[in-house]
């Protein structure tokens, strides 16, 4: 057999390296291209919302400049006078809109804080917001969990749905988790927390 790097033993050497130092073989063994944050199974073309070579995800709708009729644009005479967004003034629906449509953005954090203040809680495993259904009986309660009926916000149906399930307190994002978003651009600061 060949002894240099142009035969099978040459291939064997980087197969063996791959097991321990994968970054050394990123070119020759490559990487799973599905992990580059692109929707490769999309039936439509992906270039119209390609986020760019260094983006970990496609563009969000609000990142793309569509040519809309000028009537849709904020009229210049009032543009400078619009009040800054104040989340405490908005209904839950708009808060959920910001939370699900602005991933990785400060306003997602601000919406989470405001929802928390309105007694919504984020389930870190189900990745859903929930709140108690008014008047729902507490079927079971211990120090670590409770069972009752809750309102879940379902983003796929964009509505609140009632659901009875066993809620483990450790799975809820606590005040600690939410308050880590302490830096909040002034314009988005929410109301003082309600009880």
């Amino acid at each position, binding site marked *: *057999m*060949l002894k*240099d790097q*142009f*035969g*099978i*033993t*040459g*291939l*064997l050497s*980087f*197969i*063996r*390296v791959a097991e321990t130092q994968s*970054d*050394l*073989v*990123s*070119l*020759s*063994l*490559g*990487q*799973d*291209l599905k992990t*580059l*944050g*692109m929707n*490769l199974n*999309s039936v439509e*073309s*992906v*270039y*119209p*919302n*390609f986020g*760019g*070579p*260094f*983006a970990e995800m496609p*563009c969000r709708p609000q990142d*793309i*400049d569509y*040519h809309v009729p000028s009537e849709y644009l904020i*009229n*210049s*005479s009032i*543009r*400078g006078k619009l009040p800054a967004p104040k989340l405490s003034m908005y209904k839950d629906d708009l808060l959920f809109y910001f939370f699900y449509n602005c991933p990785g953005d400060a306003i997602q954090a601000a919406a989470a804080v405001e929802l928390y203040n309105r007694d919504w809680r984020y389930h870190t495993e189900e990745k859903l917001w929930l709140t108690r259904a008014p008047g729902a009986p507490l079927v079971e309660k211990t120090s670590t969990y409770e069972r009752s009926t809750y309102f879940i916000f379902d983003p796929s149906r964009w509505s609140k749905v009632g659901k009875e399930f066993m809620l483990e307190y450790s799975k809820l994002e606590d005040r600690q988790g939410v308050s880590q978003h302490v830096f909040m651009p002034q314009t988005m600061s929410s109301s003082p927390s309600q009880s």
Partner: protein
Amino acid sequence: FDDPQGLLEKTEYLLREWVNIFHSPSASRDPTKAFSVFVHQMNVHGILKTDDLITRFFRLSTQMCVDLCYRALADQNSSTPVLVRTKCFHTLDAFVRLIALLVKHSGDASNNATKVNLLNKVLGIVAGVLLQDHEVHLTEFQQLPYHRIFIILFLELNTPEPVLEVINFQVLTAFCHTLHILRPSHAPAFAYAWLELVSHRVFIGRMLAITPQQKGWGMYAQLLIDLFKFLAPFLRNAELSKPVALFYKGTLRVLLVLLHDFPEFLCDYHYSFCDVIPPNCIQMRNLILSAFPRNMRLPDPFTPNLKVDMLQEINHAPRVLSNIASLIQPASFKKDLDNYLKARAPVTFLSELRGHLQVSHEPGLRYNIKLMNALVLYVGTQAIAHIRSKTLQPNMTTIAHSAHMDIFQNLAVDLDTEGRYLFLNAIANQLRYPNSHTHYFSCTLLYLFAEANSEAIQEQITRVLLERLIVNRPHPWGLLITFIELIKNPIYKFWNHEFVHCAPEIEKLFESVARSCM
């Protein structure tokens, strides 16, 4: 040099004036009126009097915008990146709008040359300021102002307005020229922004989708070749530094967009791209070679008893937009080659082949890879034509005993292991979707394996195929069908070879591929 007395002050005054106008509510209400008032001011200050003064005005304005950005970026500690950018864009976007309006409204409606000339002038000025700044600031160079000017100007000039649609191809050409001048090997500190510009969704859309008759494809291919040429030296070593790894990953993303949306573009230019991609960038090369026309349905390579010879598509030659014959240099070598292909003589030609291939102009490379690739593709296409001229089809029988196969067999025997590895890679680069080249080169590789006079040749053919298969997907169709044939067809006695059983990992690999074939 020699800016007229007072021009700098005038330019500063006018630029400041325009920025205020641009951000004023009245300008938003009636942009054309605001612009015409400002053009009058430019006239009053004599800026538009001569071509030279206009040029100086744009250079001084560009430099002022750049200086402002450097000051704002230096001031980072006192404000967030978002605020720094807002401050920079406040002036940059106004300056860009002025350029766009001047381009749109210069010359009369029918005279597009004036518009295009002015655009080329301004792009050239910005590029010149960038290159000079790149030389001065070196590692302190900031891409931000230039990136912003180019992308916003491109977006402004690609809004769907009749006056712009008429000159859109010239606008695209102007930007491609500018991006070629600013290619990463010329301005490496601008490389990340350059890749953002080249792969911007609107730029890709215009160059590859909207512009009719694929007129933008050649220019876009040139920009990708600039990209691969820049990356190549840094990808030849196994370990990538973080900056290179990020740039490489960005390149993969761009190629994935092209593979998904414009596979025909990758099919047409695969040869030029693979000519500049280093041999060890196996996944990136596979990505390009895996492209196939969207209207084609590929038979599953693992179909039992797949009869490749029966596929309709293997009678059609793929489009290859590079002029392969012209790549075979020097001309005397090309003449000898053609003589040998025609007369299968003199035999001495074969013994001189290696010498020609070992003349490398690139330090550190012992072989002229470009010549190797061109020779293989040229001889192969000549072989297909020759076989067809005898009203035969290329297959394991008709490709044998010919001047063309003499050359391939001579290269297989006469080259050292590195040369043979590059030679076999040149063949494997033709294993793509079902077409006459894929079929011919697949037969050739199998023929070289079957007729090899040493096990080293067979080992290297296996190496070249296997390293392309064990890499993460995608895998070219032609590669899969060739390897499956090699391990399934008993005439190749594949499993008898020592190199198949030389280590447990290798044996496991072959068996897993064999299992997926069965």
